Each structure stands twice: as C-alpha cells, then as structure tokens.
C-alpha cells in the first residue's frame, strides 16, 4: 500500500512570532479573566465588597487624621515663639529686628508687644496689680511674638528657630511654648500608629480574601488545568489567568474602596465643617488628593496580585493529569 502524501510537521514559530504570541496571550488572558469575574457576579461582588470595605476603613481614618493635623496647626497660639528683648533696645534696632524676623521664610507673622502694653495686660489679668502699681520701673521686657508657618510647627523645626533667634542682637531670651504642640504630636502619633496597625491587619485580610477566592477558582478548574497540562501547557501559562484574576480583584476592589472613602467623607463633610468652624472659621474638609487616590488603588492592586500569587504558589505545579 502506498502512503498518501505525508503531512509536513508544523515548524516551531520564530522567536519574534512567539514573543508576539506571548504579548497577545497576556492581553487575551487579561480580558478573559475579567470576563470570568463578570460571569460569576455574586461571588465577584461579594469579594470586591470585602476588599473595598477592608481598604476604605483605614483610608478614611487616614484622611481624617490628615484633616485633624491641618486643623490643629491652624490654631495660632500653637507653636508660638516669644522673644523677650533687652529693655534698653532702641526703636530703630527694634524695627530692624522685626523686619529681619518677618522676612524669615518659616515665619508667618510677628507681633510686637511693648513693655507698657505687656504691663497693662498683666495688670488686667493679675491679682497683684496693686503690688505692681508700687514698682518704680516696669520690670517686664518688650516682647516679639513670632507665629511660624504651619509646616514649621514641629518640635525639631521650632527648636532650630529658637536657636536662630537666640543669636540675634537685642534678644535676651527666647521662650517656646511647646507643651501643646508636644501633646498634639503625641496624640496624632498614637492615632497614626493605630491606623497603620489597622491598615496592616485589614491589608492582610484582603490578601486572605483574594487568596481564598483564587484558591477556590483553582480547585474548581482542576480538571481544566489537567487538560491544559496534557496539551503541553507550562505552569506559567496556566498560572497567568489566576494572577490576572487577582489583579482585577485588586483594581476593582481598590476603585470601589476609593468610592466608599469619597462617599463617607462627603457625608460627614458638612457636620465636620460646622463643628470645626466653631473654633476655626475657614476649615474645609480635605478629600483624598489625586496621589493618595492612586496610591490606594495601587496598593489594592499589589495586594490582589500578591494574594493570588500566594494562593497559586505550588498549587498549580502539584496538579498533574492522571
């Protein structure tokens, strides 16, 4: 029997073709894994909501903390520096000094309190006014009250300013009222740490949520994975849709989380402004900045990818056709 014409074996595609196919496969899998989520709307919505809530909570707290800090920094008497001058400071020297300090880039404004003014204020407030009445000379020094700009209201910076001012001519003594500032800093520090801890725990829970749904997906597709292995698929090829699945969870969950953050902040915006307005008239609740929004979504994508990577682990290598 004479054999019919033999088929030519398919030539292995060139490197360039295979590279193009590789890129094409990535795009295909990207869309395919999105479609997969779409086809299981209930499970997908559930997972996305869990991710969104877990991320929105620390994000909201973080934004509120930032707002708190700007509010406290706006309180003028926080972080003020008092410069007690020598009593014999001449008028021109005083003007000169005030001008120098006003020009300093970390100074918001400078207020001059003359010795006489200081004395009369003191008299008004003090029970010892009679006692002061009998004094032959005014014992109080003239004072410059310096309000630093908001960003300089930190103990390091203020201490540096204090040293600078101390070296100026005619300055007898510099006093820094740091107690309030230190208290505030301690409080915000505690809150910041608490938020970070909450964020880490909820970030871990996102890893678990994503990891678990990817793990279930792998279990459900065990037969499919076996078949594709029989056709000659590499582990990397099989892993790809699961990693992209985790990426989508992260991206969509992150967007949803951002949405939740905005909703929560817009809901509390007016009452918060009303409340703070009692103390500080021009307060506006800050919403997350563009950078902050992008970082929220970015970390969500990272958590999604990492969670699915952990879930995929060696699980796919272990599944073998039988």
């Amino acid at each position, binding site marked *: 029997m004479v054999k019919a014409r033999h088929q030519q074996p398919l030539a292995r595609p060139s490197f360039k073709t295979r590279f193009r196919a590789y890129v094409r496969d990535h795009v295909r899998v990207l869309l395919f894994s999105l479609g997969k989520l779409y086809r299981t709307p209930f499970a997908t919505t559930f997972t996305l909501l869990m991710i969104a809530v877990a991320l929105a909570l620390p994000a909201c707290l973080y934004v509120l903390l930032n707002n708190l800090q700007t509010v406290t920094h706006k309180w003028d008497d926080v972080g003020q520096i008092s410069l007690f001058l020598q009593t014999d400071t001449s008028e021109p020297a005083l003007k000169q000094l005030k001008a120098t300090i006003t020009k300093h880039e970390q100074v918001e404004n400078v207020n001059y309190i003359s010795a006489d003014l200081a004395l009369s204020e003191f008299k008004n407030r003090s029970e010892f006014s009679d006692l002061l009445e009998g004094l032959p000379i005014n014992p109080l020094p003239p004072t410059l009250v310096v309000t630093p700009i908001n960003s300089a209201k930190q103990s390091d910076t203020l201490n540096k300013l204090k040293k600078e001012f101390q070296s100026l001519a005619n300055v007898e003594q510099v006093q820094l009222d740091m107690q309030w500032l230190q208290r505030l800093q301690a409080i915000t520090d505690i809150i910041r740490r608490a938020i970070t801890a909450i964020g880490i725990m909820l970030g871990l829970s996102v890893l678990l949520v994503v990891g678990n749904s990817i793990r279930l997906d792998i279990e459900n597709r065990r037969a499919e994975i076996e078949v594709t292995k*029989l*056709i000659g698929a590499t582990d990397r090829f099989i892993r790809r849709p699961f990693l992209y699945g985790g990426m989508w969870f992260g991206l969509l969950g992150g967007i949803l989380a951002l949405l939740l953050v905005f909703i929560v902040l817009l809901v509390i915006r007016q009452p918060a402004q009303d409340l703070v307005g009692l103390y500080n008239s021009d307060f506006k609740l800050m919403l997350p900045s563009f950078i902050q929004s992008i970082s929220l979504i970015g970390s969500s994508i990272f958590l999604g990818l990492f969670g699915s990577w952990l879930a995929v682990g060696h699980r796919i290598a272990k599944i073998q*056709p039988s």
Partner: protein
Amino acid sequence: MIELQNVTKRYPGNREALTHLNLTIEQGEMAFLTGPSGAGKSTLLKLIAAIERPTRGQVFINRKNITRIPKRKVPALRRHMGVVFQDHHLLHDRNVFDNVSLPLQIAGFAQVDINRRVRAALDKVALLDKEQMMPITLSGGEQQRVGIARAVVHKPAILLADEPTGNLDPELSAEIMRLFNDFNQVGVTVLIASHDLDLIERMSKRIIRLRAGECIDSQSPLDAQNFEIHN
C-alpha cells in the same frame, strides 16, 4: 517512534499494572491496544504521554529516552503528541474555536496561522460550521470530534487515544475510527486503546492485546485477517 523496553509499572499499594512489557511502534504505524478492564491499557498510554513514570524499564519517544524526563521538559514533549480522551475533556467556558486553538496558543503561533490551522482541523472533523458554538450545546459525537480536532490541530507526530469511541453508537464509532485512519494516512503514528473488538478487527491494523499487565499477543494486519478466517 514509540519503544518500551522491559517496562514495569506498579502503582503505590497495588499489584503491577504492567509487567516486563516490550513493545515497539514504528513511525507512521497505526495500532490498537485492547484487553479486559484493568489490563493496563490506560497505564501504557500514560507512560507514553509522561503522565506516569515507569517503575522499571525504559520508554523512548522518537529515540529519546523519556523515562526520567525532568518536569520542565514535559510540556515540550506533549506538544509533539495529540491526546484524545473518552470523555473529550473540553473546556466549557469557551467556544469550539478557542478549545481547538488551545495547543497552538500554548505553542505561541501567530494568529493568522492559528486561524488557518483551526479551520483546517475543524474542516477535517466536519465541524467548520460549529466553530462559534459552546461545547455544551454539541452532541456527544460532535464533542468527541472537537476533542480530536484539538488533538491534531498542531500536527503532532503521535496521536494517542484512550477509548475514543466509548460512549458512541456503532456508526459514529466507525466514523471516528476512519478519522484516525485518515490521520495515519498522512504519516501520524496512531495508538488507540479500545474495548470494541468488532470495530478494531474491521480496521485491519495491528492489534496489541494486554492481559493483567502483560502483552499476550501482537498481531500484524495479515495475522488479523487469518484470525478472522479461522473463526
């Protein structure tokens, strides 16, 4: 093309599924593998596809020793083969075209080549008009043909089939066997495990009979004809 030298396979906690088996299948040959249930037919095919490793002995594919082939080289080996299963193992979340194109996607072919090859394979199994359908909407025989198209779309040198006609009526079974014969005609080495003695005897090809892990008979087509005459 396929050579087994003194192969023994023992599954953990079981008796030997194959015992000191020697077998050579030449390039371009078509052979049937038959024998009672538990004889070791599936095991033999699994050794060839590197799904299982032999306990003793050597397995050669195309003169390459695959007995201890490392895991990372298995995908490349399998791309030279096509495998057809009894329950066709189609992926139900994608249509016929995407199922058949899978081996080409995996191997990284250009989209134009994929389109051309998939259509050629579907044409061969007479399913060209069903390429957009989902597997679940096809009949059993059609699903089996999709499985066959997927197994041959990348023009493998070896085609393995385990009970490919197990669930089909006699007419469809004969049609599937003719398809395998066609592939063999263009040079593909074909090895088919089957219970269906009537059918495979009519094909007048080599028949390898296993019983309890041993090869008890290996008839060439000529012997097969004699066998028919004597009975």
